[in-house]
């Protein structure tokens, strides 16, 4: 049986991620105007943000598909992509050039969402395999 909490969480994650992406991009632009943000520090931050957005789309799609078709392979792949997203999220939380308080809040929420999702995915895979 498909896991309903996982489905809800994936949907909410998708919506939240759009807000998160726009807010982080706006804050990077704000930081580049207000603080001294040379180009070789701006480039890695922007690259990480865009890479994370790029990974998020297949991750969510695979999660939806795996959960609804009760197949473990897409869910497993989604779990792997989640691990990558977690690393990038931690970078934006700790190793960004300027970490604002708003950055901390957004990334903490996203990280907790990822953690909860991973736990639900593991239980779903366990349910589908058996």
């Amino acid at each position, binding site marked *: 049986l498909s896991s309903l909490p996982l489905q809800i969480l994936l949907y909410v994650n998708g919506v939240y991620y759009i807000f998160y992406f726009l807010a982080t991009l706006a804050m990077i632009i704000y930081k580049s105007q207000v603080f*001294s943000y040379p180009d070789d520090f701006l480039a890695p931050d922007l690259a990480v943000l865009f890479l994370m957005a790029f990974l998020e789309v297949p991750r969510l799609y695979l999660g939806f598909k795996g959960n609804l078709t009760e197949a473990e392979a897409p869910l497993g792949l989604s779990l792997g992509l989640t691990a990558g997203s977690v690393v990038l999220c931690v970078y934006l939380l700790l190793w960004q050039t*300027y*970490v*604002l*308080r*708003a950055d901390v809040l957004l990334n903490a929420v996203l990280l907790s969402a990822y953690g909860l999702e991973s736990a639900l995915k593991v239980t779903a895979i366990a349910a589908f395999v058996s």
Partner: protein
Amino acid sequence: ICRGDSQLCRQKAAVYSLDVEANPPERIFKLIDQVNPSIFCIHATNYKQALYLKSPEIPTPENFDRLLDKFGGATFSAEPDSWNLDMDAQNPSDANETYRYEYGAPVQTEDAFLRLPSPVVSSWCSDANPAGFLVNQATKCIRSVSVEKCDSIQALSMLFYINSSILASVFQVNITVQSIVVQSLNGMRTLLSRSDVLRLPMVLDGLCINAVLGVNYHITHTDTGEIIEAAAAFVLGAISKEALSIEQSFEISFTQKNTQPVPLSGNPGYVVGLPVRAGSRPQGYPFPAGFLFAALALSSNKHSQLTILQSTSTQDCLAAQGARAPVLFGYNMISGCKLRITAAMKCQPLAQTLLDVLKGQSFPEYVASFGNSQAQDVLDWVPITQLHISEQMMSITLQSSCQIPVSLGIEVKWAKYGSLVNPQARIVNVTATITTTTLKQLPSGKERIIPITSSVVFTDISSPAEPAYKAWPTINIKLPFDFFYPFV
């Protein structure tokens, strides 16, 4: 309270307060943690240089020369490479295009810019001042010299100023020597008859002769901004042994080809305070075959300006030597004199004399509507309307008795023309009104004094400005024709 960068989320702050209750009052020092409530405060940075100012480079034996080049002069610009040396980097495709200059653009020569040495920070000459196109300048500066090194100082020789050729149009314009004036030690100047011989400085009898004391550049250009001719007039002089410095003066003036070098009264609108330009049509030229105005050479030439009577100290009209004052744009003037009439004066010659006194020897017929109107442009010149008004309203006695002019009033109506942000003054209408009065015959022996006045009034008849607004953008929404498929 004393704290660091206020953008940080948490920072240590030192709080100093005064405890007035203790005796004697003591200063209390506390170290607190101040929290910034903003959501956009900096929680952490991984970029250590963000929070501190950049420390300047400490000179070491290795970088000293480089730092001295960059910062050693009296001034240093933010872009040191935009100038002098790097002409090879300029794209060679420019050589085929016509070289058009805009107002203020530096006049370029093959190696750098046309130099007009001028004082920069102090009175010492700096050779790095470029001449701007159409910017007439005159500068004076001091150069340090010594008689022994007279032939090695470049700025004292004529070659330095005419060596480079100006980049203009397809070819280059060489600077020709227009005239050479030699100034002796006691200040007497002589114009040399031959100006094609190059006279270089040399030491003679303990003096350094042929040293350049002044250069006057005359550049001729077309109305599209291309330079076609350049000439330089030199003043050469001698430097004595004791002199440690000499004063050099430089001037540059731009003239448009085929026009007389009349100083403009505005470009194009009249500038307040500059003389109103006027002229008259010479005899024999039929209208509207074109105008040519006589003798428009110098600004002090009375033939090219509108003038009014200038009051003298004696205030006697008949004794006035014909002193006239030029009418300056925007300045209302009034002047006059007193006329002493005796019984023996005849009417007609008196009336004619007064007319000459009021109007002057050559009263113009036309006034330029713009400050830079050329004589060839017929439509740019406004005719002066002449009116005659009689003071007495009695019409019957007008013809028989004697009418003498007593006042001349020139009313110049001008309007603002052009854009709202940069309106130009343009003369629209000029009316010269002569008021006459009857001269009653005096019993013999008696005298009368009547005042004669002339005035100039400038009236602004600009219509109120109507700003033009951009049209509202039209929203053009059209749905594709099969939008409501399959319902339609």
